[in-house]
């Protein structure tokens, strides 16, 4: 560490927003008394262009090498001050942000004295951490332009076309003999009011794929092994029946392995009577004109769907209506019945049902608890169904029974899961990175997800997902690298016992264990949550900008004076701090006992940190993270919750009152929750004055 640490502290008035409550000149004077501080300055509006200019001049003139800004909130203003720091010629990781508006002046408006004291502590904590800050840098990992696409259905083909259009190389791997996937087995595809032969769609797409010079198609081929990570994969491809696999260098991967029907063997006479078939088998029969003469066709919906283990198949009702119409068109005289639970038709799909009704297709709703029953008698399939609307049971004689069955992921999913170290649900559908905002990616960087491999969906949605997944894969290929913020894990192997826990716990697969069992962080994949660091039994992992030493320095600084009246609150940068800020914006008043320490994720907070606070005499400790199920690092808050439970036991053993360790899971909209937690804590810890 350089011995000459020169810290500059810039305290903001925010007009009267801060200065109207806090005694800012007193804060500035106080800051000057702190170790390493060579300059403290008051700014009326620190974020104004004028003041930023002054700040930069002062940094240069006074050779400041650590900056503390005490103002509003890092959630909105940190990028601005980071930029200013960089422009002043300093490494932006040498900036520490202290929040004295949202965390102090706006929430303790009626207690200016106590508020000023709290702000002093926060500044002292910021300075203590700043003294230990080290330079950081964005980390880059080179990425070339070869993309592997697993699955040659419409999602995979669309992805390949988009990737290839940029001049990148698409390796499209399909285990069947030809491209097209599910569409090769369908008759007509319908969307809105349009219908198109499935074969024609496949032909059109496959022709575009075939002529593209940048697409290499490997049909009848499977992926045998995958090694490495984004920018750096070695993938072995093996043609069916071939002896040896060929290895290709790959930078990004798109998974587009599609879906399958679950055959309802043994149910509704399926497998016993050839006239009982699935929708997909019906499609094949229609496609090959092999349905034969029919006089009465019954379709049963939700077969093995919408029960204890499985949800809606998403497409079945639409397919049933489409195929009922197709049969009615071929055999106008035949009776066609659709037995259903709920017609899950959205947007204008209801129009198709209306048309089907006009053509004479009959719709009967049966109750969830009472599925139709089927038996064969005098050459007929006899379907007994309880019609909810009529309130009674009917028996329908049929010569074809079509089952709208549930769907699941491809049978190769287990293998692909293992190869790529990604997860899938019980039905073999892959787990996307974020249900709302990350539908096209996996948590592991570099692998995207397209089409029905995620969940059953319609053709158009699969195509869109294919194109979208191509975008996700193309961004790093276009830039030539991926980049992460410098807040990453760093393992010091000297104390490492090679337990491998960190590699197991990392939600991003960013820690790999080598042949000697030594863990290593692939920095470009690390998101800096700190889960590994807090769990490492030997404390050998540091997180840049949130090292143990830095956080403990904040704890110590906060508790230097009068610790018995203070609460140490570890707050995650995302939702919990959002809740804190929301309480601020809403001017919710709460007692000023807490000293907040920001961490990126609540999972960063180690038991040692909690314990240190108690050892230094803190009245209480709070760990605050995102409200379940939200977490910006997938499941960090869940890890934090278990850790807090463990910490309570350890604290009790060490003679501390475990009831003084609190946690709150708070959404970014929930200012009231954070404020009330503060009030309750102050009351129960008997800190109210």
């Amino acid at each position, binding site marked *: 560490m350089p011995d000459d640490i020169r810290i500059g502290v810039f305290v903001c008035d925010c*007009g*009267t*927003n801060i200065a109207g409550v806090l005694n800012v000149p007193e804060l500035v004077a106080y800051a000057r008394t702190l170790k390493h501080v060579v300059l403290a300055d008051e700014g*009326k509006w620190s*974020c104004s*262009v004028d003041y930023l200019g002054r700040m930069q001049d002062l940094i240069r003139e006074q050779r400041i090498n650590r900056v503390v800004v005490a103002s509003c909130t890092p959630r909105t203003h940190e*990028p601005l001050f980071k930029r200013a720091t960089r422009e002043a010629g300093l490494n932006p990781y040498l900036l520490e942000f202290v929040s004295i508006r949202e965390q102090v002046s706006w929430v303790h408006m009626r207690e200016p004295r106590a508020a000023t004291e709290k702000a002093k502590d926060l500044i002292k904590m910021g300075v203590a951490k700043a003294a230990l800050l080290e330079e950081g840098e964005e980390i880059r990992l080179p990425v070339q332009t070869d993309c592997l696409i697993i699955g040659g259905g419409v999602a995979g083909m669309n992805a390949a076309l*988009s990737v290839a259009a*940029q001049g990148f190389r698409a390796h499209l791997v399909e285990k069947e003999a030809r491209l097209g996937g599910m569409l090769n087995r369908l008759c007509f595809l319908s*969307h*809105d009011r*349009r219908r198109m032969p499935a074969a024609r*769609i496949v032909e*059109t797409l496959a022709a575009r794929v075939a002529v593209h010079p940048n697409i290499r198609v490997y049909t009848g081929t499977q992926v045998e092994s995958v090694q490495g990570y984004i920018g750096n994969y070695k993938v072995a491809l093996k043609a069916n029946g071939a002896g040896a696999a060929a290895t290709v260098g790959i930078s990004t991967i798109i998974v587009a392995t599609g879906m399958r029907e679950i055959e309802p063997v043994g149910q509704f006479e399926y497998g016993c009577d050839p006239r009982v078939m699935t929708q997909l088998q019906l499609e094949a029969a229609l496609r090959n004109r092999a349905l034969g003469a029919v006089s009465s066709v019954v379709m049963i919906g939700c077969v093995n769907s919408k029960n204890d283990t*499985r*949800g*809606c198949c*998403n497409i079945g009702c639409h397919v049933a209506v489409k195929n009922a119409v197709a049969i009615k068109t071929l055999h106008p005289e035949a009776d066609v019945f659709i037995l259903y639970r*709920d017609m*899950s*038709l*959205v*947007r*204008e799909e*209801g*129009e198709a049902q209306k048309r089907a009704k006009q053509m004479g297709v009959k719709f009967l*709703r049966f109750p969830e608890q009472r599925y139709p029953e089927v038996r064969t008698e005098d050459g007929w399939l006899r379907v007994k169904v309880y019609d909810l*609307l009529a*309130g009674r049971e009917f028996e329908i004689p049929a010569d074809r029974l079509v089952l709208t069955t549930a769907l699941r992921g491809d049978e190769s999913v287990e293998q692909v899961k293992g190869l790529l170290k990604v997860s899938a649900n019980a039905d073999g559908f892959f787990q996307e990175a*974020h*249900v*709302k*905002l*990350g539908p*096209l990616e996996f948590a592991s960087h570099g692998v995207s997800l397209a089409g029905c491999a995620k*969940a059953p969906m319609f*053709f*158009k949605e699969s195509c*869109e997902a294919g*194109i*979208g*997944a191509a*975008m*996700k894969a*193309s*961004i790093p290929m*276009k*830039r030539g690298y991926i980049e992460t913020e410098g807040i990453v894990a760093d393992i010091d192997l000297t104390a490492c016992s090679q337990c491998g826990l960190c590699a197991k716990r990392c939600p991003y697969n960013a820690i790999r264990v080598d042949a000697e069992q030594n863990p290593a962080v692939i920095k470009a994949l690390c998101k800096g949550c700190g889960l590994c660091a807090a769990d490492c039994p030997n404390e050998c992992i540091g997180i840049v900008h949130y090292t143990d030493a830095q956080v403990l320095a904040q704890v110590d600084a906060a508790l230097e004076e009068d610790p018995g009246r203070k609460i140490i609150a570890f707050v995650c940068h*995302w*939702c919990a701090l*959002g809740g804190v800020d*929301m309480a601020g914006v*809403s001017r919710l008043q709460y007692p000023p006992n807490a000293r907040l320490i920001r961490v990126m994720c609540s999972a960063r907070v180690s038991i040692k940190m909690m314990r240190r606070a108690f050892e230094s005499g803190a009245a209480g400790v709070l760990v605050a993270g995102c409200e379940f*199920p*939200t977490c910006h690092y997938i499941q960090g808050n869940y890890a934090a919750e278990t850790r807090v439970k463990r910490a309570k036991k350890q604290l009790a053993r060490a003679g501390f009152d475990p009831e003084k360790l609190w946690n709150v899971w708070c959404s*970014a*909209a*929930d200012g*009231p*929750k954070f404020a009330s937690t503060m009030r309750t804590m102050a009351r129960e810890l008997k800190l109210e004055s």
Partner: protein
Amino acid sequence: MTDAILVIGGGIAGINCAMNAAKYGAKVYLVDDTPSIGGMMARLDKTFPTNDCSICIEAPQMYEVDNHERIEILTNAEVRRVQAGGGIFKIRLLQKPKFVDESKCTGCGACVEACPVSLPDPLDGKIGGRRKLISMAFPQAVPNKVAIDPRCRSGAMRAAGACVGGCAVDCSQCRECPIALCVKACEKEGKKAVTLWQANRNIDIEVKSIVVATGIRNAPPAGDLLGYDRYPNVITNTEFERLMNAGGPTAGHIVRPSDQQPAHRIVWVQCAGRGLGPGRGTPYCSKVCCMIATKQAIIAKEHDSSIEAAIFYNDLKAYGKGFWDFHRKALENGVRFVRARPYVVSEDPVTHNLTVRYEHLDTGELRQQAADLLVLSTGLIPGDRNERLAKVLKIELDHLGFFKERDPILAPLETAVEGIYLCGGATGPIDIAESVTQATAAAMKAVLKN
């Protein structure tokens, strides 16, 4: 040749489209005609099927686009003229004034406090939301700046108590204002950000492609639907969403508009107005309302497990991944799903309690149900500015008023004009994950266009 892209609409679709295109390397103009980006998601409380808090997941993305060096956000701006030729679009945007100098405003709120007029919020009015004539769209707004209601300046708000608008000369003639309290408050803070004399601004840009991401809106209940116009305790699902939002007008307390007392019996009416004919109800299924009601009922029960929640529905649409489990979670938490079609609602004039008369769809029986609060799922309809925008862009709307794809099967998200693409609610009713998927695909198409 420019590689810039124009994204029209700053909801979750527009944000994701802009973000992906910018990360790819394109310059992006992200335009919204309201004072902040964020769209519908910024108003929501939680999101189905995981109950992730909406603003918690959206705000970080809003800050990210705001701080991205290749993204320029233009709010309060609309597309006025588009000239296509030579593979590019020459575009004139009109930015309407917020009457606030964005380079000076720090969003401190002193002006809002000073403003003497607080009126029912145009969106949250029925559930007690109020808004000053100068205000921030919502606390996490991007840009985090205030804007003045233009009616204030024109004098239209004098009767409501506005301090300005009564001068002989128009505000555009002055360069300072001794009258306006917001101007004074801002000056007292040491800034001069409130500028009542601000004028329209024309912005000319050139782009190679355009993505339309103008979203959806909630259908207003037409013609006193189920007593909406007459009874204070009949509200829409969007209003309920605000009611349960900790950042909404009631700080998340689920209370009745009539008396601010906690609502104990809540009934959701799905497909409200369907089948009542043109102009009365949404004629198609809006896809997401079943899950919205399910979510709202779950959250209501989480607030207070003694709440009786019933959802009156036709056909349950649990079409997406995890949606069925979500429905079952509601059942486990005691939410009742009733196949029912309400035909009339009446109110006790003293208590404002409601009685819903309905037909039970499984049995055909006529029954009734008492309720403290009735929530109408009126459906999602096209944006009210779609028609104008379509004309300017020279693209078509479909028969429902959503933007039309030229070939949804072989060329998804493309319009009849090469270089103009669609995503999100602009294409029809849709959920968030699908919006994000389309937005990412539209970004791919937009950067690929040459």
